[in-house]
């Protein structure tokens, strides 16, 4: 029965947002989105864009939000924080009611600063940088992405439960993502009492990572944590890790759910465990994925960022419906008053509960999902707690 209730959740997203009440206005509901169209963050930016476009099409086909069609205005932030701020200005001038950040965390931070100044409600489904969240929270900012400190805290719990007190080695690429993430994880895991026996770094574009793999093997770590944003480099490391005979298990974060990681790594990816915000076995997620695959083809399969973007937009449109208005302050208030909103992120039963003191979906490491790559496929959530 519960399944039956849940299974239609994504497919009925459009219908629940429509209303038989006459349209309040002929003007569309305007949502602004800044994304990286062509640079380093573009591969996950465009996936999120595609997911949102499919949802908007469904919502509009079902009558829109309170009879008003939804229109997304996209601006290319060029993966540049300075450009991002000007694009936020541009979206503000267009009269958007909400701005969504689907580029990198660096541009997300720039958008946050500017949108807060302009008093426009905004947020992100996928930026994980810790410093996007403040306490008390930024008044106009709402996030459903998994904060990276929760991922590292969950990793600490997982490592203790599964391996006792393992010695850790870190391997990262020298991208901004790799350096920021790994610094956070190293700090958090050391604070949790783990010994870090090696930290190795790969320059993006390196054709050979044997030196790093041998150094990690010689350090005799019990578990190796791999973090970064450059998938080919980390895929190369994963392959060489196995080739040099290192049996230490590998753990990473959700960035490894890029489809090209398995293609590039091949059989060496088997057993790779990573943290994630999405449990693909949840019926809601299965349903959303059906829609995205129907929309753009097999390239939508195993793309958690699409699920994240879909659910975030659904949340925003629901807030606009509850606000009965596209006025920015009204939408902001409605977002902050979101209570028990079921969402297809995190483990089963996760709901959005924002408040004046919390604008994050994820409130602790217990909500982090762990998944494992097996037989060339991204597996469902591992039950380990």
């Amino acid at each position, binding site marked *: 029965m519960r399944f039956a209730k849940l299974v239609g959740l994504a497919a009925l997203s459009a219908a629940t947002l429509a209303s038989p009440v006459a349209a309040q206005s002929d003007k569309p509901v305007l949502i602004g989105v800044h994304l990286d169209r*062509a640079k*380093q963050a*573009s*591969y996950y930016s*465009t996936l999120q864009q595609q997911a949102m476009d499919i949802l908007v099409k469904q919502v509009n086909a079902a009558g829109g939000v309170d009879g008003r069609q939804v229109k997304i205005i996209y601006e290319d932030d060029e993966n540049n924080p300075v450009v991002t701020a000007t694009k936020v200005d541009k979206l503000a001038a267009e009269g958007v009611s909400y701005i969504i950040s689907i580029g990198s965390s660096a541009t997300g931070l720039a958008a946050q600063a500017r949108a807060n100044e302009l008093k426009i409600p905004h947020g992100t489904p996928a930026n994980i940088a810790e410093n996007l969240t403040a306490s008390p929270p930024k008044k106009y900012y709402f996030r459903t992405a998994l904060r990276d400190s929760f991922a590292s805290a969950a990793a600490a719990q997982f490592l203790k439960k599964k391996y006792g007190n393992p010695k850790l080695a870190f391997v990262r690429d*020298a991208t901004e993502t790799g350096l920021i993430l790994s610094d956070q994880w190293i700090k958090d895991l050391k604070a949790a009492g783990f010994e870090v026996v*090696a*930290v*190795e*770094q*790969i*320059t*993006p*574009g*390196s*054709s*050979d990572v*044997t*030196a*790093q793999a*041998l*150094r990690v093997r010689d350090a005799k770590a019990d578990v190796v944590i791999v973090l970064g944003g450059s*998938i*080919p480099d980390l*895929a*190369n490391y994963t392959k*060489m890790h196995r*080739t*040099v*005979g290192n049996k230490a298990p590998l753990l990473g974060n959700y960035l490894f759910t*890029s*489809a*090209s990681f398995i*293609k*590039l790594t*091949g059989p060496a990816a088997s057993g790779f465990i990573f943290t994630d915000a999405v449990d693909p076995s949840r019926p809601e997620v299965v349903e959303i994925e059906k829609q995205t695959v129907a929309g753009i083809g097999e390239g939508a399969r195993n793309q958690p960022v699409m699920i994240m973007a879909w659910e975030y937009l659904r949340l925003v449109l629901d807030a606009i419906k509850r606000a009965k208005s596209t006025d920015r302050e009204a939408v902001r208030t409605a977002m902050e008053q979101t209570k028990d909103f079921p969402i297809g992120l995190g483990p089963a039963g996760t709901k959005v509960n924002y408040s004046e003191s919390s604008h994050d979906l994820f409130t602790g490491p217990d909500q982090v999902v762990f998944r494992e790559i097996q037989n060339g496929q991204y597996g469902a959530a591992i039950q380990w707690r």
Partner: protein
Amino acid sequence: MTASIIQVLLSGAQAGIIYGLLALSYYVILSASNILNFAQGEWMMIAAVSGAVLIASGLPYPLTILLSVVIATTLAVTAERLIVRPLEQRGASLTVVILALFGVMIVVRYSTALFFGRQEEPLEGPFGNEVLAVGDSIFLPVQSLVVYAIGAATFVGVNLFLRHTWLGRGLRVAAIDSYGAQVIGIDLNRVRLVAFGLGGLISAIVGWLYGPLYAAGYLIGATPGIKGFIALFIGGMASPWGALVGGLFLGITEVTASRFLPSIYAEGLAFFILILVFLFRPTGLLRRRTS
């Protein structure tokens, strides 16, 4: 320790030959025309990416390699014809030409993202992607052997071309004295076209050496392109062999630093050593012979 040194030399030589070949591609064009072509890394990328696309389409492997090299080289020559030559004919300064080629680099790179997609694909090497192991401390990808062999053949081939063919001698004469070359009847436009074509061909070959070791994707030309540029100036412009010397020096320095120091310091140390080289040998490691 011996095994570590051998591994460093093997890995460093593999990386170094790739950098050296890209440096050679820059050298051929720069010496013949004074033009620094920032798009060289993109021809390498185009060869790898078009190779991945052609393999996926089911074309026989040898034909895939040939076609993708032809595609990349043709693009290189097209850039000379459509961008460089018209600018030169209009009296544009060298700076403008170089900036235009920088623009070509950007356009090629992001157009590839648009048509090929933004995610990298694997590229199968001609002899597979296996790794040979000697004991538990020496690991040699089969593709590295391909790099050594094709790299050596390319350097020897280019040198023979420059020394023993009419076209090659034309490139060398234009490099020494472009005015004198015109006086003796050498067509500088043709020389430049040949230089761009040869540079594109070398880069395309690198695409098939590097792609199987890394991946095929729209961004893969960026880092090796820069490293090739640096290798060119480490080795110096005295001869094409300077490109190989510079590449090997850079590759082996990087890998040595990564093997014997925590690799978080390796990149910084490698560039520190480069600064020392430039301070003490500003014209490069290989000196030009004086008569």
